[in-house]
């Protein structure tokens, strides 16, 4: 007597092949190494930020907490497009200048930042995506965003 699954395969070979393909695709999505074209996470201080702040306006440039992932977007690029220097994260950045900071250790980094109203910036660097659910979820999110 043959197992039921083999009988199913014999009866519905195309459906079985498609199921295998789906499983293989999920397996690939869960375990294949993540490769991205750029590791950069770019953040900019727009022109006029200082003037707006001096005028008493609330200026929200970017999140007070920046979240990065090793192996994915682990190079923080800070660019100052304003006309005055800003302490942006860990560095004093001149107008028109950028600061490119690679991270190689997962941790939480606290920096000062004059671009923020309260003068603080946290950078949380998460570990690289683990094989399995992490990579699968990341690829599904990416697919959803693209759609």
């Amino acid at each position, binding site marked *: 007597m043959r197992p039921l699954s083999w009988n199913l395969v014999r009866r519905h070979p195309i459906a*079985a092949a498609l199921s295998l*393909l789906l499983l293989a695709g999920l397996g690939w999505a869960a375990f294949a*190494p993540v490769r991205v074209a750029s590791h950069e996470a770019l953040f900019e201080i727009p022109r006029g930020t200082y003037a707006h702040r001096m005028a008493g306006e609330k200026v929200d440039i970017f999140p007070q907490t920046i979240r990065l992932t090793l*192996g994915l977007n682990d190079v923080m690029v800070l660019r100052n497009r304003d006309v005055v220097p800003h*302490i942006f994260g*860990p560095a*004093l950045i001149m107008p028109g200048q950028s*600061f490119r*900071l690679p991270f*190689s250790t997962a941790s939480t980094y606290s920096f000062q930042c004059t671009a923020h109203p309260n003068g603080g910036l946290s950078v949380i660097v998460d570990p690289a995506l683990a094989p399995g659910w992490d990579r699968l979820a990341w690829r599904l999110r990416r697919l959803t965003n693209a759609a």
Partner: protein
Amino acid sequence: MSPQSRPRLLLLGVGVLALLVAGVVMMRSPGPAPSDASAVRGAAKAEPMAAGMFNPAYAAPEFSLNGSDGSNVTLARYRGKVVLMTFGFTHCAAVCPTTLATLAQARSLLGKAADRVQVIYVTVDPERDDAAHLRDHLAAFDRSFIGATGAPDALAAVRGKYGVTAVRQGTGPDYVFSHTSSIFLIDRAGKLRALMPFGHAAGDFAHDVNFLLAH
């Protein structure tokens, strides 16, 4: 088995075989998974420097302070050398000793190239860190290190030029400072090229110094 089902089964067999081949190719493909520590280091190594780099790089702000060797400390004095400059205070219990020990170890790793590197340690605590005290303190790490001190206003002006903060905390003789712990990397032409956040290993400094000596 009916003759009609043979092509379907053949197709299924070919599909399974193709999946197996694809799986084997995928598992043997070059490049480790990013979850591996080696892959993470690999991504970091793809960058020219471990430190954060400024682009474009501008001249490092000049200053003139009292050196722990009895002379004036200026950046111009060290043209032709890579300068590693950091801010701290000698009564610091954790961050500053770690930084100084790391920089001393980096000089050891550099071998002969260490002669082309100058560490400058600018105090944020002129009240306790006079030139003689800085000299004795730094000698415990590396005799080539230069300490810099001066009037509170002069030191505050230097900190302002570099975006460094230092906030006094506590009262009495055991006060401390919360201060910027990054290390500034200044090239042989006096340009502020990069900034290394606290926590990097000596090897990263040695790597970056070699990069600045070569570029």
